[in-house]
């Protein structure tokens, strides 16, 4: 895209994108680290996730302030407007994802006397969700709507894997009542992962709005693709 006539506005837009990516990087790291703490049984890592959540929250406030002043002072239009709107929404999803990672870390710390024995399904789920988060952030960074669509599409598999994990977890609980505490903590961790995936989908949907100007929320994948390719009109 051509440079903005007002150089300072161009700089502000660039700074806004960078801040979002910085926040996204912290969130992705928090999710990875929280799951490492679970799988490697490493309370130090869990504590680090909890301590670092403050940085994510601070970025949320800072980015909100940036978008507020841009709306008031620059009256952005078209692509700039869509970037600012997308940012306002993405920031909330990132902050929530950070909290969910913190929740995973918190659950891990509670497993001290009740270790989670069966972790392979959780590990599979985590890999899928982390990839989903990565796709959403990459799509934002490179303004790549196809990657964003891929991220949305991945949600089906994540949900399926989450359901399978829940069923499996339930069988462990039924087999051995002594596993109930660990099982409930595992269930909470799985739920948090699944919700982090949902937030990644929200982010990806906002990237598509930002890049193409289409609102594909709450429509099926086929309709979304038709909207984006222009085969279908918004009305």
């Amino acid at each position, binding site marked *: *895209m*051509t*440079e*903005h*006539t*007002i150089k300072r*506005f161009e700089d502000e837009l660039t700074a806004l994108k960078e801040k979002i990516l910085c926040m996204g990087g912290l969130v992705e790291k928090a999710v990875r680290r929280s799951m490492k703490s679970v799988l490697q049984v490493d309370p130090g890592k869990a504590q680090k996730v909890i301590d670092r959540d403050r940085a994510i929250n601070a970025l949320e406030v800072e980015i909100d302030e940036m978008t507020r002043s841009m709306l008031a002072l620059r*009256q*952005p*239009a*078209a*692509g*700039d*407007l*869509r970037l600012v709107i997308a940012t306002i929404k993405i920031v909330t999803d990132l902050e929530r994802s950070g909290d969910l990672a913190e929740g995973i870390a918190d659950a891990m710390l509670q497993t001290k006397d009740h270790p989670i024995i069966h972790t392979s399904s959780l590990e599979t789920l985590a890999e899928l969700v982390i990839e989903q988060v990565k796709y959403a952030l990459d799509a934002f960074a490179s303004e790549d709507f196809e990657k964003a669509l891929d991220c949305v599409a991945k949600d089906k598999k994540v949900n399926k894997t989450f359901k399978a994990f829940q069923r499996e977890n339930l069988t462990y609980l039924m087999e051995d009542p002594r596993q109930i505490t660990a099982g409930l903590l595992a269930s909470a961790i799985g739920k948090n992962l699944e919700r982090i995936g949902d937030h990644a989908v929200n982010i990806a949907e906002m990237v598509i709005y930002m890049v*193409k*100007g*289409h609102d594909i929320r709450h429509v099926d994948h086929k309709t979304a693709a038709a909207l984006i390719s222009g085969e279908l009109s918004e009305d």
Partner: protein
Amino acid sequence: MSTDTNNKLTIRDLKLWYDDFEALHGVDLDIPSGKVTAFIGPSGCGKSTFLRCLNRMNDRIPGCRVQGDVLLEGNDIYAPDVDVVQLRTHIGMVFQKPNPFPKSIYENIAYAPRIHGMMQDGPDMDALVETALKKASIWDEVKDKLKQPGTALSGGQQQRLCIARTIAIQPDVILMDEPCSALDPIATAKIEELMDELKQEYTIVIVTHNMQQAARASDFTAYFYLGDLIEYGKTTDIFTAPKNQRTEDYITGRFG
């Protein structure tokens, strides 16, 4: 490029030359009835020239030549038998600089209906003046000083007086060429509010340099560049997700 609503003006392949210079390169546009349509674009893009074609204001410019069709409800306004004076009672114009006649406020309104033989002086004319001033949202400010000169009013009031003068002969279409560029924000807001009310009865076409004004006040927006119509659509679409990259660049201030 058409809209779903009824079209008041239909323009087909409109070209215009100033001597050898082709200022408009074949513009097709439908202007919907009862809506505000805004023309935007950088200086020299042809938006004012195009607006002036819509009531034949370019006719008397030496060396100016127009080709193509401008249809007012299906009737060609460039047909040889069209009386330009009569045409302008259907398509009125408000200019950039408020230009009231150097006459009383009352006379500014009554003049055109009288010379067009629409009405003689008397109670009916008084009522018409009052209605026109009311529709232009200036009645309350001038009702006690109708005999004072129109030129004594403030800029914003003068502009609303000019709009009242246009309304007095009950046109179908009101063309506005940068009607607020000489006005302060409050006076501008009043004119924009007025446009919103007037579109119930009239079709309004406005040329503006102020993009935010186009965004605020219009239903449809047309973007012109170097004598071409680049993009035309619903104002919300143009300002949130324009289809053409050149429109995007202009709207977001990335132009030139």
